[in-house]
């Protein structure tokens, strides 16, 4: 009795394992016929099939974003808009595909791209050496800087980098802001998002934060959420790029299309609309 029970259980567990593997092997769409599955799988594995062809075959460019004004954010109708969102739509039109925006957890962007859950990260991403190792990044398109933001009433005391040494900073984890904080030997705490970093300053948990110029401008403007804060110093200059899969030909294609959009003035119009400075 016990033996038979054990055998049944072993069989059940084994079945469970097989089922799990099988479900991993399927395309995730339960309705797809098995025959389609195998063709999809072999398409997937065709050695040397270009990433661009893969995207054009499926007919949509899946863009990973976060809510990040003025690059990507939702308008009142719940549609993605912003400089990057409009730019991505323009590029997708040239590629002849549709755009799908997926809001991702920024910490996992490398995983999202590498595992093909998204095709690119297009979200005001500052180009860093570390990112170049995990993704292929397009030519820079918008200029940015890392700026120090702190309460307005304290700002007049801090006009040089030297004067900032004793402050406590908040930065986004592994961000460009963290990089300059390290270079300057500041004391800093790392948080998940830049928005968390500025919140730390707002609530007095940190004396100042180091975030992107574009974001600082948007958030500390007159009438914005953090109008009690202001930017005091710019610590470096840097540029935004679009992150594609390692070895993807999408990267060069976006560069080509970008040249075209620069030539016909599309990007200049967008830059003016969202008050950004293009890299030319």
């Amino acid at each position, binding site marked *: 009795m016990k033996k038979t029970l054990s055998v049944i259980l072993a069989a059940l567990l084994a079945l469970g394992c097989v089922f799990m593997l099988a479900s991993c092997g399927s395309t995730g769409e339960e309705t797809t016929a098995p025959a389609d599955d195998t063709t999809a799988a072999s398409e997937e594995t065709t050695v040397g099939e270009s990433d661009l062809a893969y995207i054009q075959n499926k007919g949509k460019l899946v863009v990973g974003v976060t809510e990040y004004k003025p690059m990507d954010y939702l308008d009142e109708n719940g549609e993605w808009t912003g400089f990057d969102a409009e730019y991505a739509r323009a590029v997708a039109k040239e590629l002849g595909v549709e755009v799908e925006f997926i809001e991702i957890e920024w910490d996992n962007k490398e*995983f999202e791209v590498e595992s093909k859950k998204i095709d690119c990260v297009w979200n005001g991403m500052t180009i860093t050496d570390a990112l170049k190792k995990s993704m292929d990044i397009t030519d820079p398109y918008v200029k940015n800087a890392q700026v120090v933001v702190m309460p307005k009433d304290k700002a007049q005391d801090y006009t040089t980098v030297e004067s900032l040494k004793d402050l406590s900073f908040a930065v986004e984890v592994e961000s460009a802001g963290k990089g300059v904080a390290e270079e300057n030997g500041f004391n800093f705490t790392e948080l998940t998002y830049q928005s968390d970093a500025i919140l730390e300053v707002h609530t007095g948990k940190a004396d100042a934060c180091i975030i992107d110029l574009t974001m600082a401008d948007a958030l500390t403007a007159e009438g914005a959420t953090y109008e009690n804060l202001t930017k005091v110093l710019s610590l470096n200059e840097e540029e935004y790029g679009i992150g594609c899969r390692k070895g993807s030909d999408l990267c060069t294609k976006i560069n080509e299309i970008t040249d075209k959009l620069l030539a016909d003035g599309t990007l200049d119009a967008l830059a003016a609309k969202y008050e950004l400075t293009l890299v030319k």
Partner: protein
Amino acid sequence: MFWTVTLSLLEGFMTTLELFALTLLFAIPLGLIIAFGSMSKFMPLKWLSKTVVWIIRGTPLMLQLIVVFYGPELIGGWFGELGIDNPIFNWLAGMKGLDRFPSVLLAFVINYACYFSEIYRGGIESIPKGQLEACQVLGMTKSQAFFRVVLLQVVKRIVPPMGNEIITLVKDTSLARTIAVYEIIWNAQKFIKNGGLLWPLIYAGAFYLIFNGLLTIIFAKLEKKMDYFKA
């Protein structure tokens, strides 16, 4: 504003509840299977169960979410790069993971089933052997003894630890946001990111608190109902 926030949080909480309910639905029976495996006298099965429980309890649930969701494609990518053309390699290279929600569900079910299995095992092994011997004397088969004598006593004994785990599960669902499943905490954090509104996150806590309050009452009632088992 309050209304907008409430609606958004409710929407997120529906995902939370869905994940909670489906996890329980699958993990409770799966846990029993794993518990039987761990108690089996058939050594390979016993060690298989024990190893699974060790791995799942020994690694963070957040990591398991990432492995379940991104893992298949990443492994597929490595095999694809090898460029070896044979059916097994092609199959491995073509591996595709599940969608976001099913991935979270799969990871949660496996994780919680392992914790449940240890609670079941503790419950089953706490029943005195003498009862089984008595059943044998009465001429019951082993399965009769288990289902008619042992099981309900086990249920009573495991209500408090199960209550613990189930309440933890309600809160653990917030991990789903690591792979961008938009549950209540994700929705609450959006208000911070976009408008610097802090209170929605605290307000989200009230949703958990009220729901867990309900669960606590249910568990207390359940325990009371089973009072007649007092030995």
